[in-house]
């Protein structure tokens, strides 16, 4: 987040979100920009490239926590976490999805580098946690199987 953005945030806290929205356009209150190129990337390698991940280390200090089998691919609980100091950014990617990048989080100081959300999975796939700490990238992954359920196909 650059300095001017921080300034805007400081101002929004004074002015209130609604007013800030009308002054600056509602997107401006956000720290993170929605990155169309990263979200539109059609495979894992491209998505990582668009996120700016050039070199990375596979790290056991990063974790993807989920059940190994999801009963329904529409809702798969996934936690990503990192115990690497100064973790500032975390992203969730589902390798086999049409667009792998699912969500990304800026982790401000004071916020635990552990976020849980739920993602859609088109089928069985590796799910990646991509973490940035002190400017370096770290990765972890876990395979989650998606099953069919119910009768009547």
């Amino acid at each position: 987040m650059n300095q001017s953005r921080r300034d805007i945030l400081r101002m929004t806290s004074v002015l209130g979100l609604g007013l800030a929205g009308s002054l600056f356009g509602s997107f401006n209150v956000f720290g993170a920009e929605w990155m169309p190129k990263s979200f539109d990337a059609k495979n894992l390698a491209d998505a990582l490239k668009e996120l700016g991940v050039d070199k990375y280390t596979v790290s056991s200090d990063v974790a993807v926590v989920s059940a190994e089998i999801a009963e329904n691919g529409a809702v798969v609980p996934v936690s990503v976490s990192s115990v690497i100091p100064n973790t500032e950014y975390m992203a969730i990617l589902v390798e086999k999805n049409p667009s792998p990048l699912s969500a990304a989080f800026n982790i401000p100081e004071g916020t635990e580098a552990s976020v849980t959300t739920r993602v859609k999975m088109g089928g069985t796939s590796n799910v990646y946690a991509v973490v940035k700490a002190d400017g370096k990238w770290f990765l972890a992954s876990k395979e989650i199987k998606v099953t069919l359920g119910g009768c009547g196909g």
Partner: protein
Amino acid sequence: MADPMRIRAVLNGDKVEVKVLIRHDMETGLRKDQAGEIIPPHFIKTLIAQYEGKTVLDAVMGISVSKDPFLHFKFKGGVKGGKLNVTWVDNLGDTRTDSAIIS
């Protein structure tokens, strides 16, 4: 108009545990309706959580975040009675802000 969020913020030791539930279809733009027409994409793109004005989580989301999104995270520095605001904006420009008092 968008439905209200359900935000829970509970102080646990030195950390505030936050759970946010959002009523949103998170439509991918890849599905077809019964008539075979593509259902246009409709999904939350950005979400920010602020405690007394300070950003505690800042997220961007794509179409593969599940319908009725759920977020769970923890931050330090919050006190009981403090106010947490959560705001999201979707791809159609619809937005909603709700708040919770830390308990």
